[in-house]
């Protein structure tokens, strides 16, 4: 049972981590919390559903929906954050602004798709026989999702460390004014950051929708709070911290249930987070880790 539960935690944690990475990336660069991240997570899942329903193969639907998520992220920045940035509105006003955009996205999705739960036509992937490997059982869908989530996080890490864009993002995260003085195009770099962050959030939404074969208007709300907890646990702005935080939260949730404490699941999860934060107030990977990535 323990092996199966650890595997359950690993699968859960991978999607949590992917969602949180996008969340923390925007914070690392702009020092703002983008509370529309969960709305983009949901919107992308609906886009993937529409594409799959129109006959687009699932891998393409996944990539297309993640790209739409990225574009929504750029629009979000242009509408909700850029005007406030120009007016030096601080950090609280953009937070409220992002909540407003999240509500608008939710209303638009409801208008287009209605309130009913949507289900992917997964070409039989969801009905494929479960894979039994020793003491554990998993499906092809779960394996694909795990591999896709980990692959995306590896690619992000490479982009941040080894590409010009990554260096620009890290420079802006370290000191926006200095980066501008050194010739970094701030607005383009921020737009690229939003595209990457939101396409990762969107990818997490599509994978979540596929994993449970369920796309709903409120699918973003449970992960929103957990995502926030993960990025605080990992260290605000730390991509590595978000990944590890995601796996920790996934494992703690799963193991608390395995221990027969399902009704205490959230209390235990947030209790563990509290203990870690008391020991390390700036999170596991400290502050500003993105700048040193």
């Amino acid at each position, binding site marked *: *049972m323990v092996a*199966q*539960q650890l595997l*359950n*935690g690993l699968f*859960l944690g991978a999607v949590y981590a992917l969602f949180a990475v996008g969340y923390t990336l925007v914070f690392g660069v702009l020092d703002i919390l983008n509370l529309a991240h969960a709305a983009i997570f949901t919107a992308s899942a609906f886009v993937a559903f529409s594409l799959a329903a129109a006959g687009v193969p699932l891998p393409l639907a996944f990539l297309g929906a993640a790209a739409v998520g990225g574009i929504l992220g750029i629009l979000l920045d242009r509408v909700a954050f850029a005007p406030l940035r120009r007016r030096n509105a601080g950090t609280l006003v953009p937070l409220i602004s992002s909540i407003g955009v999240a509500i608008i996205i939710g209303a638009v999705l*409801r208008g287009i798709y*209605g*309130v*009913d*739960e949507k*289900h992917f036509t997964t070409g039989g992937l*969801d*009905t494929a026989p*479960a894979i*039994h490997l020793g003491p554990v*059982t998993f*499906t092809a869908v779960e394996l694909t999702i795990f591999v896709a989530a980990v692959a995306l996080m590896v690619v992000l890490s490479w982009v941040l460390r080894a590409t010009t864009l990554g260096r620009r993002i890290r420079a802006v995260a370290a000191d926006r004014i200095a980066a501008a003085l050194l010739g970094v195009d701030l607005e383009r770099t921020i737009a690229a950051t939003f595209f990457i962050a939101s396409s990762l959030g969107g990818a997490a939404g599509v994978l*979540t929708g596929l*994993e*449970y*074969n*369920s796309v*709903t*208007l*409120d*699918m973003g*709300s*449970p992960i929103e709070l957990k995502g926030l907890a993960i990025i605080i646990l990992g260290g605000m702005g730390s991509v590595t911290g978000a990944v590890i935080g995601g796996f920790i939260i996934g494992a703690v*949730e*799963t*193991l608390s*249930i*395995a221990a*027969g404490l*399902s*009704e205490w*699941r*959230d209390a235990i999860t947030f209790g563990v987070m509290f203990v870690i934060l008391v020991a390390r107030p700036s999170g596991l990977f400290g502050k500003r880790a993105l700048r040193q990535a």
Partner: protein
Amino acid sequence: MNRTSVCALALCSIGAIGAIVAFAAPSGAASKGPAAGKTVHVGVIADVTGGAGVYGTPQKNAYELANDDIKAGRIDAGGANLTFDVQDAASDGAQVVNLMQKFMTDGSTPLVLGPTLSGEAFKAFPIAARASFPVMGTSTTAEGVTAIGPSVFRDSLAESQVIPTTVKRTHDKWHYKTAAVIFGDDNAFTKTDGDIFTRELKAAGVDVVDTETFHIKDTDFQPALTRIESKHPDVIAIGALFPEATKIIQQAGKLGIKAHMIGGNGLNAPDMYSVAGPSAQGTVVGAAWYSGAKYPSNLAFVKSYTAKYGKGPDQFAAQSYAAAQIVADLVAHGATTKDEMLSGLRNVRVIQTVLGPIGFDPNRDVKSSPVILSIVKDGFTYFH
């Protein structure tokens, strides 16, 4: 063709024409009752949007269909201009309370139907009860709802009425000895399910070997199901609403769990099999309504609802439409004020509805029998 054949053909033709005429004409052309010509606006509170929108939307649809059917004479309101005014509570408890107060004080609403969720009813019904204002829940099945006050009724079979029969019928057939219970502990309906399943299973001599809880909107049930499987129960009792129930059943199938599964009203949705997949086959569901029930008004309701909305009604819609039929019956007998509605509800004997013939017991709960169904491909069948 001989003479006998000709006569038989003629009789058949007359019968067929008669049947067509009877079908084409309004089934219950409006009578002229004491309230004929009067306008009656009944308030409805439903979660059309927000987290519970998936339940409130079919309710809204049912009332809109009822409005059409009253106008067309297919529901007899005694010639009164009866309409149902559906207001969206947006799955927000505060808005439910505001709407209840609005309806109670607008001077033109004699009765309120709804809200959608039991938790909302526990907020809004005490306000109505204190003012002796009649309210009727159509989907508020948690224990204690009608105990809020003497003006609180419901036409939805409580889980306490459905689950004992479900446990008895399945136990009589399967003779199981052990069970696990999994339920949502942050919702009045699913918590009630969990409590009653546990109580009834123990009363039947079944050993409850594991109890797992989850939260509404959870999507991953594999840790809980893995733990349940480690205890090898014969039966898994599910206290959940549709979105969580389908995922529990689907993921149990994925983990290779072979235990029988049983559930309550929350599992009575037309899409159970198509969403949960083959793992749902054979799951037993205790419910208040069966879409395939042969009551004439139910057949017509399912047909017209499907035609209007492009998908079949669920139990939320059926219970709302039944509430509209009950109110129409009261109005047809002259009830137009809140006191007349209250008196009418207290004196209801039996009304024919899409749920079958129903009335109210002394505790103002619906007097009706649960149906025990089994999920099969593309729908449900009676559990035998």
